[in-house]
């Protein structure tokens, strides 16, 4: 192992000793990264010439070039890279030798490709009987629709998330959260891998796991699915807030600094109305809001205020109306960050709409060690990466190495397999 590249682990990760063979394909790259950063020995198998994602922008210092893709850097941390030509018999032999040492095969190959090549689960089981084979396809291995061409966008459209996302103005199109179609599928690939590894640790048996990317989207839509399943109702998209069967009030407010805030659900209990009332007065804004007197009424209310009585009960309607107006007024007078912190200090659940880099530079996340320097020996400098999604104190997440160059670990890995490097390229 060339341990000098990247960071050394303070302690072994949770997946220490687990070998994952990943057949390089864009949709599953994130799953391999998650497993690698959790401590698995991920061996990324690329075809001769390399995976196309090596050439995706953005590029380091905006200079396109070999090993300069930030997309590649991001999605392939903590992996070793080898080149194997699966279309060639010698390459397949080498792949089988690798599988003989593997715990997990992670792949998103076209539905019938591995079977045609004689290296699908049934074939590989005779080489590694307790293999966990995770296959990720658009609609699952059994569905011919998996053979259709797709991108993150078309998977999302078919899976359901965009229907719920967009604007009150329905002449504007539904909106896709970029990258998340692949990410959702990767989350299920990882949960499946971990579940199967735990089962294998107890029972000694491996298995084949069929992950459907569109099904993953379908069960990641919250109310859109269950409102239909339960009541055959269709939610409608709304700007910056939950799609809903009946229109709901706006929760997104432009702040004094030109950024937006999410005003959240607002107070429900007397304590919350009292805090809002106090804050409004402290800011000298009480006089600007005639209905603010209803906040005092809310502050005197006994027990939780029943939000479902809005529209039925005049007093409750007025109290909730006043709290929404007060939150919007305050937001319009403060920066988004001041509004967020002020609300939360008053016990009200609200947020600032940050751009990703604004969150990344925020002291809160920095204090978690979220900014992680990784040494790139080829550039002679540290590059700062986003950090851990999960911090496990006894078996920490870590980026153990930068993304591999094409075939960077051929010698090392094939030597481990006691094979000759010129054998099956």
């Amino acid at each position, binding site marked *: 192992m060339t341990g000098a590249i990247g960071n050394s682990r303070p302690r072994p990760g949770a997946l220490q000793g687990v070998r994952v063979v990943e057949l390089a394909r864009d949709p599953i790259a994130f799953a391999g990264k998650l497993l690698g950063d959790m401590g698995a020995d991920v061996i990324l198998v690329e075809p001769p010439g390399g995976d196309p994602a090596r050439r995706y922008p953005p590029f380091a210092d905006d200079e396109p070039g070999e090993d300069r893709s930030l997309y590649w850097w991001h*999605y392939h941390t903590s992996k070793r890279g080898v080149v194997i030509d699966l279309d060639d018999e010698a390459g397949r032999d080498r792949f089988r030798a690798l599988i003989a040492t593997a715990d997990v095969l992670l792949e998103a190959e076209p539905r019938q490709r591995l079977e045609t090549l004689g290296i699908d689960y049934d074939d590989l089981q005779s080489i590694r009987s307790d293999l966990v084979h995770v296959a990720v396809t658009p609609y699952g291995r059994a569905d011919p629709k998996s053979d259709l061409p797709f991108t993150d966008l078309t998977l999302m459209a078919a899976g359901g998330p965009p229907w719920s996302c967009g604007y009150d103005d329905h002449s504007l199109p539904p909106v896709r*959260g970029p990258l998340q179609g692949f990410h959702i599928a990767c989350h299920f690939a990882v949960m499946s891998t971990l579940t199967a590894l735990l089962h294998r*640790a107890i029972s000694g048996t491996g298995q084949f796991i069929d992950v459907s990317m569109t099904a993953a989207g379908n069960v990641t839509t*919250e109310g859109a699915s269950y409102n239909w*399943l339960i009541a055959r109702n269709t939610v409608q998209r709304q700007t910056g807030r939950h799609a809903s069967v009946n229109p709901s009030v706006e929760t997104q407010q432009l702040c004094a600094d030109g950024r937006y805030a999410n005003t959240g659900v607002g107070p429900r209990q007397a304590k919350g109305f009292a805090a809002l009332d106090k804050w409004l007065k402290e800011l000298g804004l009480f006089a600007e809001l005639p209905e603010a007197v209803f906040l005092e009424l809310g502050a005197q209310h006994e027990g939780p205020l029943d939000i479902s009585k809005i529209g039925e009960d005049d007093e409750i309607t007025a109290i909730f109306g006043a709290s929404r107006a007060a939150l919007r007024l305050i937001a319009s007078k403060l920066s988004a960050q001041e509004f967020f912190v002020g609300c939360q200090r008053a016990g009200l659940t609200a947020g600032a*709409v940050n751009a990703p880099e604004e969150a990344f530079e925020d002291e809160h996340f920095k204090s978690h060690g979220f900014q992680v320097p990784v040494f790139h020996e080829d550039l002679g400098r540290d590059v700062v990466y986003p950090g851990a999604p999960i911090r496990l104190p006894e078996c920490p997440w870590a980026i153990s190495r930068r993304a591999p160059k094409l075939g960077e670990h051929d010698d090392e890995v094939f030597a481990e397999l006691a094979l000759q490097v010129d054998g099956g390229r």
Partner: protein
Amino acid sequence: MADALSSFRICDFTGILAGAGATKWLAGFGAEVIRIEDPVNEGRWDILRGRQPWVDERRGINLGGAFNNHNVGKLGITLNLRTEKAREILERLVAVSDVVTENFSKGVMERWGFGYERLKAIKPDIIYVSNCGFGHTGPYSEFKSFGPVVQAISGLTFTSGLPDQPPAGWGYSYMDHTGAYYHAMAILLALIHRHRTGEGQWVDLSCTDAALTLHGPALLDWTVNGRPTRREGRPHANRNFWPPMAPHGIYPSQGDDDWVAIACRNQDDWERLCDVVDEDWCRDPQFADAPSRHASQDGLDEHLSAWTAERTKFAIQALLRDAGVPVSAVLKPGERIDVDPSTGAFGLWPTVTHPEIGEIRVDGQPVHFSETDWHYERSGPCLGEHNEQVLTELLGFTSEEVASFQEEGVL
């Protein structure tokens, strides 16, 4: 078929979706998940408990459809932890559990006297996974959150939008679903570690940190190139920049709020699209190759929108599928659940039988395991439904004791 996780017991204080979704996954694979609710307010800390959607005109604490959806496969007990007796019962339950997990705000468990040190004293190899939204350390640790707040703070609301518009954000709690996925991963990783070393641990999950890892290369573009995502012309969420694709978007079609997603990955896709569309603009030199199409994407989208607007989304989908171009109608809930045969064929919407609601369909899991597949037969628990079963069979109390706990307001 065997269950993958049947040897594990989860003492489960989680709820709503960010927590409940995690233990739903574990329950589907056979873990014994015992969900604990507060009898005093009928479990309403979970804002989905006893709330719409409803199956019919009936209303009631056990009839909430969303609660049922997120809690299938779990047992449910009530414990009023304001009482000493309930704390004793909890102590017994912790002693026979592998995992204790919750998504309260910071300090709730500590105030009951069940912080990690105490849990560890009761059961030395206990795994404790908490998600208080922002994590238990740092300036925001006391702050409370729901999905939309996590999405706003982490940048996911911002990146989901169109230029010159406010953020569209996510029309649902994407980070409650996804927080639950990371919560499940945390539990599974800690169980794997315990299996190897015998060691438990406290995983202080911060759903917002997890959200901040979902920006792909955008943060490297910031740290390496100094390029912010808050800039002119961005976000442009329906376009693709990594790698560049053009055309790439969600286009209007005939019908009631009907839309279709089309993506050309490369020159071949573009030529196949042109064969189908076959209008003059397809041959305009400004669209001849990928870089020029990318440079004139606004104009390109206008032409393509005019073409799509004259057809139905399913007609466009059929034409472009035949041609081999990536395409999908933007499916409405009813279309993907009951019209598209794929989800039903995959078994994605299992039916459970709820003691009060009756038969009801729920979200399944988008995976199948050849040896130990998930399954849901049991509905979400009614409030305190398994008090008697769990306290007598598992914790060794007598039925008489359980009855008196009930009377004394312990359960």
